[in-house]
């Protein structure tokens, strides 16, 4: 892959020129909560923040949107009102999350709503500063080699810029004067040093090796019931997880007419109604069954299917779950057959 070098002080000028392509969005922090916001430039962004509360999936797959308008005659597709966006500051785990979403939404029956947003969004990654909740070293998502248009690795004075797509290359060419192809020995040394530094930052204790077997063995483990005692079925874990893709669909009717919209919105398998079928039978009426489904899907099933976990180690479940149920505590509880305090 093409790797270029850019002086750090040139980033604002680059982003300014990139805005010709579309709206610029980046991480901003307000009252200790980080979220992607539409920004004018670099000065408004918080590139030191470790994670946004909601992952960038919300741009490709909004929490709620209209799929069809309908009347008696039938259904008319609603598309086209999606702005062109540049997302700046995505971390490797975020990009790995989007790669998993791509697999789910773009392969075998392509989802046109996701595809349109993906097409109209440029992903510009940025290296990150791990904190004690980051688990990407255990999911092998601490670095990323594909999925982005550009990726900026911060090496103090310079950025090394990975060019991941033709569209990313177009952005570079708009300000070709800011980039250099001349990488030297020092750049390699600095990059090696950076990788060493990043790897040393992880504090979380988590090891996911052998998880598929441990899940299989622990299918009937009382650990699930103990965890279910604590779980509130609030579904926040699904909302903040970069790889949770489940959704529900409802028809909203204009009062007194037969016209309306067919809307799609985020759902969670932690919710009681998730597996209820007509007539009222619930395939997962016990909270323990629903918890097990969530974690089985992340740490066992996806590995069987795609050879890697559906967890990208972003740590959002760690920072969000009000009762401390997350990938780290669940995998530990299953291995030690004991729910930690």
């Amino acid at each position: 892959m093409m790797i270029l070098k850019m002086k750090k002080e040139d980033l604002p000028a680059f982003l300014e020129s990139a805005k010709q392509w579309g709206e610029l969005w980046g991480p901003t922090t307000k009252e200790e909560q980080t979220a992607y916001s539409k920004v004018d430039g670099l000065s408004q962004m918080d590139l030191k923040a470790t994670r946004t509360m909601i992952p960038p999936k919300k741009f490709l797959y909004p929490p709620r949107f209209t799929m069809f308008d309908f009347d008696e005659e039938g259904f008319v597709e609603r598309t086209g009102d999606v702005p062109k966006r540049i997302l700046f500051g995505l971390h490797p785990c975020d990009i790995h999350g989007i790669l998993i979403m791509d697999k789910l939404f773009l392969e075998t029956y392509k989802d046109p709503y996701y595809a349109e947003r993906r097409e109209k969004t440029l992903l510009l990654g940025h290296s990150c500063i791990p904190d004690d909740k980051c688990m990407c070293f255990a999911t092998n998502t601490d670095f990323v080699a594909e999925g982005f248009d550009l990726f900026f690795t911060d090496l103090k004075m310079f950025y090394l810029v990975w060019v991941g797509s033709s569209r990313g290359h177009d952005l570079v060419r708009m300000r070709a004067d800011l980039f250099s192809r001349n990488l030297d020995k020092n750049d390699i040394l600095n990059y090696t040093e950076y990788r060493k530094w990043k790897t040393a930052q992880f504090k979380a204790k988590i090891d996911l090796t052998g998880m598929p077997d441990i899940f299989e063995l622990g299918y009937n483990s009382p650990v699930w019931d103990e965890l279910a005692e604590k779980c509130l079925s609030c579904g926040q874990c699904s909302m903040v997880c970069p790889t949770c893709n489940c959704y529900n669909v409802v028809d909203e009717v204009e009062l007194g007419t037969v016209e309306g919209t067919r809307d799609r919105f985020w759902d969670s398998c932690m919710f009681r109604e998730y597996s209820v079928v007509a007539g009222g039978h619930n395939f997962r009426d016990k909270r323990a069954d629903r918890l097990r489904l969530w974690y089985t899907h992340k740490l066992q099933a996806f590995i069987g299917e795609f050879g890697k976990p559906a967890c990208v180690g972003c740590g959002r479940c760690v920072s969000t779950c009000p009762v401390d149920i997350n990938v780290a505590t669940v995998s530990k509880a299953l291995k030690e057959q004991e729910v930690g305090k």
Partner: protein
Amino acid sequence: MKKLCVVLDEREVQDNPFQPDMWRIVRRYPLTSDVNFYQARPVDVDEALKMNYLPGQFIMLSIPGEGEAPFCISSTPSRPGLLEFCIRKMGTLTSSLFDLKENQTVGIRGPYGNSFPIDKMEGKDIMIVAGGMGVAPLRSLLLYILDNRDRFGKVTYLHGAKNPGEMLFREEFFQLKERDDLNCLLTVDKDDTGKWTERTGLITTLFKELGPIDSKNTYAAVCGPPIMYKFVMENLVKLGIPKHQILMTLERRMKCGVGKCGHCAIEYLYTCIDGPVFTYWDVLHMKELIGRGVSDKVIA
């Protein structure tokens, strides 16, 4: 482990897989007190022969404003042009569907799902075991086999219902009994009419009448209420039919039918694209597949 079976038809896949096409109800009549039978054809008649499906597949059916849910197809692709399905009054959507009149329209998209493995079943003896609403998807398979009779070996059809009034397609099966290339055995748990001429007792009592079975050369297809599975499976395994040749079709909540919404997930499988037809062997090692109850009506 690899995906069990995802075969996408070569037919042109629509740009928007969620887009329902409008179909007209051309015929409707009651099968029992709470189950209606429907025939539908596309509003755009030119589309009628393009609906290409296999027994065991399902469709997503919607009424604008009421919602959308999966339903299995009861008709056979060997009689093209029309889709047939059975609807039991269960929830809000099925109540609206139940009240649909002839000439009204509904949204339909599909077909979806893996279907019965017809190409593997050809040349083999076939045993179909239907209980209650379970006949809905199995009728598609049975009629398909009868329409291509010379491509299959011995065909046995076992059908159980609670009582004569609850037996779906009763007249149809009494006619099929006349055929000499089909062993059709019907039973009711209880005869409350005094006029029932066939067997009385649970469906498992029919197994005693089967005679010799070439078990290794037999495919069995089962669908019925949860309680039926346990005993029927026992009987089929006792007959010596290999577990991967015992087929069953499952029901789950679905919001998309195309592997996106997540609702029908069972471990790494989606009932909508990897199923709804699974083998008894799948069921044995996928704990959630059948553990907490099997449906009496396959899909919604």
